[in-house]
Every structure is written in structure tokens, then in C-alpha cells.
């Protein structure tokens, strides 16, 4: 993509600058800030309440808060539009009940930029919640106890001690959320919000200008660079290794009186709107249409989705571990650069990644083919393009940052003097990895695995472009029906994606509650 971007394409670019470029950039920035802010507002209080306080339903909320993750953003957009649109049941009901007509009342428009921000924040906040909760649970009790003995109340402890200590995790979470929001195509396109991402496709497909499209993609990447630079900058001043984890966690703060309903509301509203309502609507649709659309191929689709997600997640985890550990061992400028650039993929729209993967693989295939013809007189045809390998490669490019964030966050919590101790006892770097780090990282690794698994199950654009003949997934089926504007028919497949995602999400929650570095019994 970069190579293409270097060639100037004056006319189209000038046309964009004259007409729509400001809108694209502005909407992308607003979307990024809005979704990031929304995710923080939902995720951090929920994480603090479930990790540091005691109130009715806390155990339930611990994992229920993660459920919206299982719902792909474009699906929540479709369901809410179906519910809240002018022609939807809610507004129609209001009109019929009160005898209103169109001019008589104001109703917020779902399909708008604010609507897109709310939709994306509802399904993306779990990233912030997840990382924030892990960080809160992980905080050494000592620091909190010290602040308590110094007379700090719960609010002060939260704002002056817990929150600053959790900062790297919060920033990592928010930057993931913002990258995902930047890369979103399905939701903003359906809502008619023009962003850089929709612009890329418009220029590329509508005007047939891949060069200008690549340049827009370059602009998008600039945003991501800025994000990542901010993240690095904020981490720079401080090191966040804990010096000790031996003491017990302080008891949870038992909430009383009026605080209880507030706490319950803060934890109930996100999964209610981010999961229960859309999943309910999907169920209603699915019950009605399943007999017509679900047939013998359904199980095959399910198996394809699950196996693909599992395989890709495993491979990506391995890569993330290699990169993260490589950086720890030898933190040269080049290694850091390689790790950082691997982290960019998450903000790039899936289709762009897919094309970026397709071109080099096809070139490789062609050269292998040419070589084989020349020396052996046989054609090898396409070895990689059009196979699942290409697909898994694209997933790695796109989702590696998710795994890497999690693995890195885990690694930074392991004190470097652990490595030093192990090495001084004669362990090789590999032995240190296997016998010291991996056992201590179990929670982080599982988190990475499950996050990527859920992401791959939901992934659509790259799958659509790169998959081999006669190979479909649940997401592809759901998309084909939904994009043909048969929302009710697509519900069964969408619901299957959601259900396939729930299991891992619940496992994820358990993994975090159990895995606390320093307490992990070494097997």
C-alpha cells in the first residue's frame, strides 16, 4: 500500500480536498475521540466497581460486562436501526399511542455520527473494562494500604492512587478501542457517516483510483501513528513494575445505601444496551426466520468459523509472544520499530489489509511458479493465494496488535530482576521463557488468545476477499443476507456468531479473576 501511495495522483486528490476531505478527517477524529471517551466512561467505573467494591450482583456483572464484545459492531447497528428508526416499532408505537405525526415530536436520529459513536462505544468498551479490571486487581495492596493509613478516603484513593497506577492499561485499552473505531466500515457506512475509511472505498471503488485510496489509507495511518506516539509518551515517564505482591488485597469496599443502586446501574446499563437488547432483537428475528434459512450447511459454517478462529488465534498468540519476548531480550531500536509497526494493523480496515496481503502473496506465487516452470517444466499454480493460509496471514496482520498489547502488558508486570535471577541460575533465555514467564503470563496469554478468537469469529472484510472456493463462515453468511437488506433472515447467523463468542468471553472473565501475577501457583 505504501508503494502505491508514493505516486502522486493530483486531480482526484485536489477534488477530495475541495469537497469532502475535511468531512472525512473531521468525522474520523470525532468518532475516534467520542468512542474512546465513551469507552472510558463506561469501562473504568465498571472495572473499579467490580474489582474494588462489594454490591449485589457483583459476581454476575463481572462477566456480564464483557458480553457486548461478542456482538459485531455492524450487527448492533442493524438491530438498533430496526428498533429505533422512524419506521421501527418504538417510534411507530409512540405515534400510534399518542396520535402524533412526524412533526409532533423530536426523536434522536440513530443513523448519525453520535449514533455511530454510541453503537461503537457499546460494543468496544469491554476492551477498556477488561484491561482496567486486570490492572485494578493487580495493584499491590501495599500501595492502597499506605494511602489509607495516610488518611485518603475511597474517592481520593481511586483518583490519586488506583487510577494513575492503572494508566498504562487504560491507555492501552483506549487506543485499541480507537483503532477499532477508525477501522470500522460497516457501521459508519450503514449510518451514512463519511469517514476516512468510507472515503477509501469510495475513491477506490467509485472513482477507480487505487492510488488516491492508498493515500487516504496513508492519512489514516498517520492518525494511528499519532495515537501510538501518545501512548508511548504517556508511558515514558514512569515504570510500572510492582515491587511486591506478597501482601493480601485489601477487603472490598462494601457499598451501602444510595450507592448500591448507582453501582448496580453503572454495571447493568452497559450490558443491557450493549448485549441484552440487541441479542433479544436478534432472537426474535431468528425465531421467525430460522426455519427458512437454517439448513444442513449451518453446522459446516459453524465448524468453519470456530476452527478458523481457533487456528488463527493460536498462531497469532505465538507471534505475539515471540515479538514481545524478543523485545524484552534485546530492546534495540530496530526490534522496537518492528514491534511497533506490527502494531499498526489493527487500525487498518480489513479490506485494505486483505489487498495488502493478496499482492505480495500472489507475486510470491508467480515467482515460485515461474521458477518451477523453468526448472521442472511444471506449473505450481497458486500455492498461497486463495488458500486459508492467505486468510490466516491477513488475520495475523490485523489482530496481532490485540495479542501483543496483552502479552506486553503481562510482560511489563514481571519484574526484570526475575529474568536476571533465572539467568544467573544458568537458565537460557528460552528456558526463562518456558519456565518463568509463560507460567506467570498464563492469564495474559489466555486473554490474548480469547480476544483474538472473538475478533476472528466476528471478522468479515478480509474473510470475504481472501477465502478459498466453497468456503463460508457465519460472518460471511450474516453479511450476505444483511447487505441484501434481509436483516431478519441474517439474524440466525448473527446470533450464532454471538453465541460462539460468549463462551470465550466468560472464560476470559474467569481467567482474569484467577490469574494474578505473584499468586499464580506454578504448576
Amino acid at each position, binding site marked *: 500500500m505504501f508503494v502505491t501511495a508514493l505516486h502522486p495522483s493530483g486531480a482526484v486528490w485536489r*477534488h*477530495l480536498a*475541495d*469537497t*469532502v476531505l475535511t468531512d472525512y478527517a473531521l468525522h474520523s477524529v470525532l468518532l475516534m475521540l467520542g468512542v474512546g471517551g465513551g469507552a472510558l466512561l463506561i469501562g473504568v467505573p465498571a472495572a473499579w466497581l467490580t474489582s474494588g467494591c462489594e454490591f449485589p450482583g457483583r459476581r454476575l456483572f463481572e462477566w456480564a460486562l464483557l458480553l457486548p464484545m461478542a456482538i459485531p459492531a455492524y450487527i448492533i447497528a442493524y438491530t438498533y436501526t430496526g428498533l429505533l428508526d*422512524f*419506521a421501527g416499532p418504538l417510534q*411507530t408505537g409512540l405515534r400510534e399511542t399518542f396520535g402524533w*405525526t*412526524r412533526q409532533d415530536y423530536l426523536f434522536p436520529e440513530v*443513523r*448519525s455520527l453520535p449514533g455511530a459513536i454510541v453503537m461503537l462505544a457499546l460494543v468496544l468498551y469491554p476492551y477498556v473494562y477488561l484491561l482496567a479490571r486486570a490492572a485494578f486487581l493487580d495493584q499491590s495492596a501495599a500501595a492502597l494500604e499506605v494511602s489509607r493509613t495516610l488518611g485518603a478516603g475511597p474517592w481520593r484513593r481511586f483518583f490519586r492512587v488506583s487510577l494513575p497506577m492503572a494508566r498504562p492499561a487504560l491507555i492501552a485499552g483506549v487506543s485499541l478501542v480507537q483503532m477499532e473505531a477508525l477501522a470500522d466500515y460497516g457501521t459508519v457506512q*450503514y*449510518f*451514512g457517516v*463519511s469517514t476516512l475509511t468510507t472515503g477509501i*472505498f469510495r475513491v*477506490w*471503488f*467509485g*472513482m*477507480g*483510483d487505487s492510488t488516491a485510496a492508498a493515500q487516504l489509507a496513508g492519512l489514516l495511518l498517520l492518525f494511528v501513528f499519532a495515537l501510538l506516539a501518545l501512548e508511548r509518551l504517556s508511558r515514558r515517564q514512569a515504570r510500572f513494575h510492582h515491587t511486591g505482591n506478597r501482601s493480601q488485597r485489601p477487603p472490598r469496599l462494601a457499598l451501602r445505601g444510595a450507592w448500591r443502586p448507582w453501582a448496580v446501574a453503572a454495571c447493568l446499563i452497559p450490558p443491557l444496551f450493549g448485549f441484552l437488547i440487541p441479542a433479544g432483537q436478534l432472537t426474535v428475528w431468528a425465531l*421467525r426466520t430460522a426455519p427458512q434459512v437454517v439448513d444442513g450447511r449451518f453446522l459446516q459454517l459453524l465448524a468453519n468459523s470456530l476452527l478458523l478462529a481457533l*487456528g488463527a488465534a493460536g*498462531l497469532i498468540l*505465538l507471534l505475539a509472544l*515471540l515479538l514481545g519476548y524478543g523485545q524484552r*531480550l534485546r530492546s534495540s531500536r530496530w526490534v522496537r520499530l518492528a514491534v511497533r509497526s506490527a502494531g499498526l494493523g489493527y487500525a487498518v480496515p480489513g*479490506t485494505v489489509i*486483505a*489487498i495488502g496481503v*493478496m499482492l505480495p502473496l*500472489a507475486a510470491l*506465487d508467480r515467482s515460485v511458479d515461474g521458477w518451477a516452470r523453468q526448472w521442472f517444466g511444471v506449473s505450481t*499454480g*497458486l*500455492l*498461497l*493465494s*486463495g*488458500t486459508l*493460509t492467505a486468510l490466516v496471514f491477513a488475520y495475523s496482520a490485523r489482530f496481532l496488535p490485540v495479542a501483543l498489547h496483552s502479552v506486553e502488558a503481562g510482560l511489563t508486570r514481571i519484574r526484570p530482576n526475575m529474568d536476571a535471577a533465572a539467568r544467573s541460575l544458568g537458565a537460557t*533465555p*528460552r528456558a526463562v*521463557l518456558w519456565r518463568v514467564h509463560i507460567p506467570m503470563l498464563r492469564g495474559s496469554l489466555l486473554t490474548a488468545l480469547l480476544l483474538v478468537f472473538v475478533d476472528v469469529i466476528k471478522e468479515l472484510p478480509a474473510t*470475504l*476477499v*481472501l*477465502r*478459498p*472456493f*466453497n468456503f*463460508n463462515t457465519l460472518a460471511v453468511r450474516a453479511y*450476505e*443476507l444483511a*447487505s*441484501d*437488506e*434481509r436483516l431478519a433472515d441474517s439474524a440466525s447467523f448473527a446470533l450464532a456468531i454471538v453465541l460462539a463468542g460468549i463462551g470465550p468471553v466468560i472464560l476470559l472473565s474467569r481467567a482474569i479473576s484467577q490469574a494474578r501475577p505473584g499468586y499464580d501457583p506454578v504448576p
Partner: protein
Amino acid sequence: MSTVSNYRALLSAFCLLSSLLAPPVLAGEEVNIYSARKEDLIKPLLDDFSKQTGVTVNLVTGKEEALLQRLQSEGANTPADVLLTSDAGRLAAAQQAGVLQAVKSEALAARIPASYRDPAGYWYGLSVRARPIVYAKERVKPAELSTYEDLAAPKWKGKICVRSSDSVYNQSLVAGLISHHGEAKTETWAKGLVANFAHPPKGGDRDQIKAVAAGECDLTLVNTYYLGGMVNAQDAAEKQAAAQVAVFWPNQKTTGVHVNISGAGVTAHARHRDSAVRLLEFLAGDSAQRWYADVNAEYPVNPAIPPSVTLKAWGEFKADTVNVAKLGELNAAAVRVMDRAGWK
């Protein structure tokens, strides 16, 4: 040392994966298709073809441009024999990119009218998709309607719903207007149309129909098969919405209704050329043509095929006779015009 061996392990894992995941080489006659038509809208026909001829059909669906990109990057190694799209412009683009080959077939030439196929035989239209005006029966009299051009008149202020200019259907409609009136006039028209929007464009074609039925606006532009899908829907609300609107065929005294096609071409490096041509002939044949009309409310390209019940109810119309390939050429200009007119 350890990093090296780790990378080696990774590399061998990759090789193992790719050898496991490489597609099996199939014996027997087969034909491979890249299709921009959704699986549901083509697979049943392909299954019929397999049953009748014994040829195995392999299918990948996807978005047009992505499939075209895939064809281009795979070059001479491409496994695809046939490219199916749902827009003539993309077929013309594929031809220009050099990934299609010319096919001479008497059967195809006899069944498909000249304006729906490439003069040299690089691609053939298989179904016709018309984009007329759909209006609210209660609030609009057909006598008030006349042409696409008239939709820019001030009398429709705040009464028109249209989907976004990202939609290739709108791009192609505007390209058609440019072919008749030129860019400058079309831009003035587009500005007038935008000024008449009831709200900023959003949603798909069905959403526009629902908005008209619910009273959010009075008229819209949609492809007929979306309305057909709602007329024949299981869902009572969709059926009811469809009953509240009617189709108006604009420009009957002038240029004709805007139409586009879904169609197919044989790829330049097709390994199963004969099967591919047979498949195209099958898709242009009587049973397949009737299927397009009956199942998806598209118009058959073959004028000899009688329309389905749904299509008959909307009446006959005169279609724009500009060759659909022209729409592809003007697509980029159309996008620029819509950008300048502020059509979101």
C-alpha cells in the same frame, strides 16, 4: 540462538499449515466462479447447472472490486474461469484491466439484446435491474410525477428520501444522467435533488421504501427487486409497507428508465473455458431467466421470457437504451458530481 530456532519453528508451522490448507486438486470437469452476486442469488442456479451437466461448480462470493483485484493479482495463475458481477461498470472495468476474454456464442447473441452486452463479447448481461421512482400512494398522485430531472424541482422540497451516494446504484443512475445531459447540467440537477432531501441519506433501498411508507418522505429511488422482496416477504410489517407504495416509471417520453445489469464474463486465463461458456449459455437460457424474475424480481435480459406475477403488477416500461458499458465509464465522473453537490 533461541530466537533463530523459534523463527525456524514458526516457519515450519507456516509451511505445514499452508500445505494442509492448500485446496485439493479436483478431478473431473469443473468451473470456478468469482461472484459479486450473493450466494443466495446465484447458488441455486449453479446447482441446477451442475445437475444438468455434471460439471462441478466452485464458488467464491465477494465485493466486485476485491474480486477484480484478486483476479488481477493472481494473473495467469488464477483459478477463476468466470467473473459474475451485479453492475455493468465493473464488467467494463474488468475488461479494461485485461482479465476477461472475448467469447463468441450464437446462443448468447440471440438471447441477449445488444445494449445489455459488450459489442466484442467480453461480457454478457444476465438480468436487468431497473431503478424507478417509488412513491407513497396516499400522498402523491402519479400525474404529479414525470422524470428523474423533475425531482430537482422545488415542489418536492423535503419530500425525497434517497440512499447515500456510496451506493453504486445511485452512482450508475447519475452516470446515466451525465451521458444524456453532460456533467455541468447533471451537477445542477444533483444540487436541486439534494435540496429536496427530507433528511441526510442513510440506510439501504428497503429502508427508503419503509421511510416512504411510514410518512417520513413521499418518494424515493429504488431498485425494483428490493420492493419485490418486500412484497413477497414473510414479515407482515414489510409486506404492509410495500402495500403503501407504488412504482412510477419515469422518463417514458424521453430517455427511458435507468437500468443496469448483472452479468458475467469468461476470464482471460480460464482453464475451463468450454464449461465457462456453457455456464453463461445456461444462465441466459429460459429456466435460469425465469428464475431471476420469479425468485429475485429482476427483469430477464431475454425479452422472450414472460415476466413474473410481481413484475407484471408493476406494468411495462421503456428502458434507457444507452449501452450499460457507458455507465461504467462515467462512474468516476458521477462520484465527483455527487461530491460537489453535497450528496452524502
